[in-house]
């Protein structure tokens, strides 16, 4: 009974995720056709802060593995940081850099109180988190 219900819940979550993934995939295919390969976030920061030796270590680290382009955002909206061929890990790093620059910390959600996880949930949750943390392109 319990297992049946767990599976139903897992199926529901999987269904939702499948829809989301399908949309993501279609978008990626469209992007691939256009040849676009930059992942970009806008950060409330002065472009000058992000170049030269004074730039944040995390950004320097990202630049070692990826081509990174920084430009001023229109309308005084800070700057745009673009990363070429960003994989999931790079997208996550880039969002973390944005958080650090804007708020001074990277928000954590692991290690919070939680009740009884089902065997399915114990396996599924970290996987789901890892996938969602990469963000979509």
């Amino acid at each position, binding site marked *: 009974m319990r297992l049946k219900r767990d599976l139903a819940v897992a199926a529901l979550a999987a269904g939702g995720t499948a829809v989301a993934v399908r949309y993501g995939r279609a978008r990626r295919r469209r992007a691939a056709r256009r040849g676009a390969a930059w992942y970009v976030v806008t950060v409330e920061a002065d472009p000058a802060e992000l170049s030269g030796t004074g730039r944040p270590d995390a950004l320097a680290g990202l630049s070692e593995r990826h081509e990174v382009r920084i430009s001023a955002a229109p309308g005084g909206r800070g700057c745009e940081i673009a990363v070429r061929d960003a994989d999931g890990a790079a997208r996550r790093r880039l969002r973390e850099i944005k*958080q650090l620059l804007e708020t001074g*910390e990277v928000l954590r959600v692991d290690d919070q109180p939680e009740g009884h996880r089902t065997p399915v949930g114990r396996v599924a949750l970290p996987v789901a988190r890892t996938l969602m943390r990469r963000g979509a392109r």
Partner: protein
Amino acid sequence: MKALCWAGINEVAVEEVPDPTILNRQDAIVRVTASSVCGSDLHLLDGYVPTMMAGDVIGHEFLGEVAEVGPDVRERRVGERVTVCSIIGCGRCRYCRSQMWSLCDNTNPDPGFLEALNGHATAGIFGYSHAMGGFAGSHAEYVRVPYADVNAFPVPDAVPDAGAVFASDAVPTGWMGADMGGVGPGDVVAVWGCGGVGQMAAKAAYLMGAERVIAIDRFPERLAMAAGRVGAEPLNYEETDVLEALKEATGGRGPDVCIEAVGMESHGTGGQYAYDRVKQALRLQTDRGLSLRQAIQACRKGGTVAVLGVFLGFVDKFPMGALMNKGLTLRSGQQHGHRYIPMILDRMAKGEIDASFLLTHPMPLEEGAKGYELFKHKLDGCVRAVFQPARTT
């Protein structure tokens, strides 16, 4: 500590869970004194919000006392009585600075699901699924509050717990509905749904100068509350044809502002309702849009429809033609609570807003499952059940 966890569809249970700890330097730990059920939780309970996992602590509308602060918390002090906004903002991103807090860029560390589904991710919400950030909720003895300086608001002594708890969610949400509608003197406003959110939208509309507010629902006790406590004109959609009644009441014009405070599980009568239920059950549409369609149909030419009810996916038969040809403005959003909460607490202290009558069922946390049962089925006149962890009976 004890906490109320989602255990599966239509199943919640009080469990013993680890205490929350400070995970970020700007966090605070709040000892919860009151934590309310909300219509949004029903969408979780009914299984319409994917990425819920058994063991997730739910609850997002709450009041408490600051128990501990992280080293980078500057304003909040241990011992302070605070209302915490249900939506989590960072206070620093472009959206938070522009007072669009529920669109915060930085409070959903796991944005992939929403980005893929909606194009962009929005702010984290307490106790509202892993897609919305996976934050543990407030139906617990303690809760961790990120960016405590911007998300926790000190409550004036003059405001009792019973009112202050709703300054977290129901009151600012209702206020935002009237605000988005641009309600002004002389307006006739119609509100779909007489839950906490709808009633507070009606109240806000009056405070902004509306001449008449018509409140729509089917539960007599909720309609009576909206009439008696807020002064709205009740309209029972099971007894009257809503569209006809609204035309009649507005000289044929239709309401200037229509506020939808029902959401994706709209109930209704007739064929359209049956159609929506079947399609939702088969997952051919994710959300039922009856009251939304009706609000658009009823709204006067050039009027505004403000959607407060939560929708998560797709609605069928959306009357785009009516929206376009009548030149309507459609506005929506999760609440930008931070923008309104200080003003609301101030008005509560002055006696201009009273929300305490929404609290029909104060209960100990242990009775969480019963509270949701009463609230979901609107039994025993339940409008909002509020869990008070320190309470024993």
